[in-house]
């Protein structure tokens, strides 16, 4: 009886387990910032196309690039484009970058007695984060905020302590607008911060900003919106003060669309355009241009087509900025390169 039951169990398991994984299970890994919308996309696509199952592990952009390089996943995802050195390491295929959605990074602050929405120039932000502007009533800040009474208080800078795409976008922006920042600190997922406290994750930074009087930090736009945090206007390359919204972030991408390189590896911080929010960025899927398994190849291509059309409608609802039309058109062409 009992052995029969055991044998039965084993047989049942042996038949069930492979079927659950046999169909097109595609494995992907990478960035955490777009993970919520990716999960939603993969799930929606699976319910529409039952035979395509995409598993996404949000292990971070660095992890995504590494796993793609080692060939342990079918495709990766990253908040920053791969650099030439990283691309050079992959010999079996060429990596195609597909922008999926956009995000913005905003300066958030907590100043005692100030409820107004502050305006920041690029010089002010760079000065604060490099440690040259140390008081809230510094001329570089008050100049942009006539009518706001800023206190004569020390600024406490809060930055991300964990490596993150958010930090990359923020430091990439500062590198573009400040030669001093570029020389001294540079851009990266983690940098050698000249001043300030480090908080882990968006929640760590916002927690420290909320708790520390007269502090300033930076968080993802989505996070600031969802948590109703105050965040400032930033002066863009055209000299206009722009508040980060989905529209102004998409506008930054549209501004970059004209001179978008063919491989989509582009930073859109400090983009031109009157309405462009200057601290914006794409996030990318990293797809190999050669996929041996035909079913997987067609499944991934199918998903990309769907993502660029119907998928984009999910973006705003999930607090991501959708791609501008000209970029979608360019990406649709690139799908044909997957062979």
């Amino acid at each position, binding site marked *: 009886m009992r052995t029969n039951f055991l044998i039965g169990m084993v047989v049942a398991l042996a038949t069930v387990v492979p079927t659950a994984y046999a169909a097109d299970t595609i494995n992907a890994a990478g960035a*955490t910032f777009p993970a919520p919308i990716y999960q939603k996309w993969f799930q929606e696509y699976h319910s529409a196309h039952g035979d395509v199952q995409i598993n996404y592990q949000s*292990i*971070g*952009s*660095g*992890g995504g*690039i590494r796993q793609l390089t080692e060939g342990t996943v079918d495709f990766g995802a990253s908040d*920053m484009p791969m650099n030439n050195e*990283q691309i050079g390491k992959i010999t079996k295929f060429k990596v195609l970058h597909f922008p999926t959605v956009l995000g913005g990074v905003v300066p958030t602050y907590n100043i005692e007695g100030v409820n107004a929405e502050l305006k920041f120039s690029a010089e002010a932000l760079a000065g604060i984060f490099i440690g040259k502007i140390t008081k809230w009533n510094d001329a570089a800040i008050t100049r942009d905020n006539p009518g706001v009474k800023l206190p004569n208080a*020390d600024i*406490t800078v809060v930055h991300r*302590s*964990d*490596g*993150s*795409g958010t930090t990359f976008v923020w*430091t990439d922006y500062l590198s573009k607008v400040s030669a001093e920042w570029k020389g001294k*600190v*540079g*851009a*990266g*997922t*983690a*940098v*050698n*911060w000249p001043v*300030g*406290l*480090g*908080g*882990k994750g968006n929640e*760590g930074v916002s*927690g*420290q900003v909320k*708790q*520390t009087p007269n502090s300033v930090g930076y968080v993802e736009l989505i996070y600031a919106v969802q948590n109703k945090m105050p965040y400032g206007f930033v002066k863009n390359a055209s000299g206009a003060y722009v508040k980060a919204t989905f529209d102004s972030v998409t506008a930054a991408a549209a501004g970059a669309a004209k001179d978008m390189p063919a491989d989509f590896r582009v930073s859109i911080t400090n983009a031109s355009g009157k309405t462009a929010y200057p601290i914006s960025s794409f996030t990318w899927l990293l797809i190999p241009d050669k996929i041996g398994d035909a079913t997987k190849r067609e499944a991934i291509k199918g998903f990309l087509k769907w993502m660029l059309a119907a998928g984009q409608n999910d973006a705003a609802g999930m607090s991501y900025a959708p791609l501008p039309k000209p970029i979608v058109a360019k990406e649709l062409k690139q799908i044909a390169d997957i062979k």
Partner: protein
Amino acid sequence: MATAAQSVPGRARTFLKNVRAGDEIAYLITFVFAASVVLITAILVFELWVKSGASIHKFGFNFLHTSTWDPVNDEFGALPFVYGTIITSILGLLLSVPLGVGAAIFLSELAPPKLSNALTFLVELLAAVPSVIFGLLAIFALVPLMRSFVQPWLISAFGWSPFFKGPPYGFGVLTASMVLAIMMFPYIISISREALIQVPREQREAALALGATRWEATWDAVVPFARLGIVGSVFLSLARALGETMAVTMVIGNDPKINASILAPGYTIASVIANEFTEATGDMHLSALIELGLVLFLITIILNGLGQLLLMLTTRQGTAR
């Protein structure tokens, strides 16, 4: 068994054989388990060594005594992290050992049994709380308290010394040490209390018979007897403090600089690995983080070795006296 062997020799022989075989099997199995500990440690060190090869090769010993941590330009020095790890652990110990040992003495020697049982239960509950919970508690309760009251007071009272300088952020080395102290506290109490309870009754009675007061008997006769267990509890909690990640990351301020002031932000090895590992895109960055893991391993071994040495010295002294 001997009588059984005589009465029914055949059966007994097989029985004995089985038992012997059983012994051997048990020996083998437990040996494999014990060996796996060594094996896992060896694999761990080997892996850390191999994966950190690029960093070891590039920086050599400079890794240990330079303090630049710049992932953008691939310059890595471990000193601020080593310093932060050791200073928070030691400060944590300084805060928690007197409290913990004191509480253990109260619970085992002085408190009425009912109270002692209830408190012991609570202490053991405390030991099981995940560290991230302590971190949250620290962010919401300890940090504001430190910023508004403790640190301004420390600065006004001791601000003349370099150790209590700087703005009262609330976050920082001292706050992290306090969280560590709170986390080490239940370990020290729990193990020290066990050690104190194990002290034979005669030890107490003899002291009391010589005319000692209750406190004198406790302090002069019972505590020295349990010294081994108490020191053991200290080193176990030190090991926990060295490797603690989440709770420390949440309150230390995560700034890789060496500052004399314990109010300033700092950084620990475990924190920086947890923070930067997932998004370390550069190979050298990754390699340096893994080398930090190796350094943490070494620190743990050295401190534990020192602990064993201390233990040996004190016990020898004890028996000689």
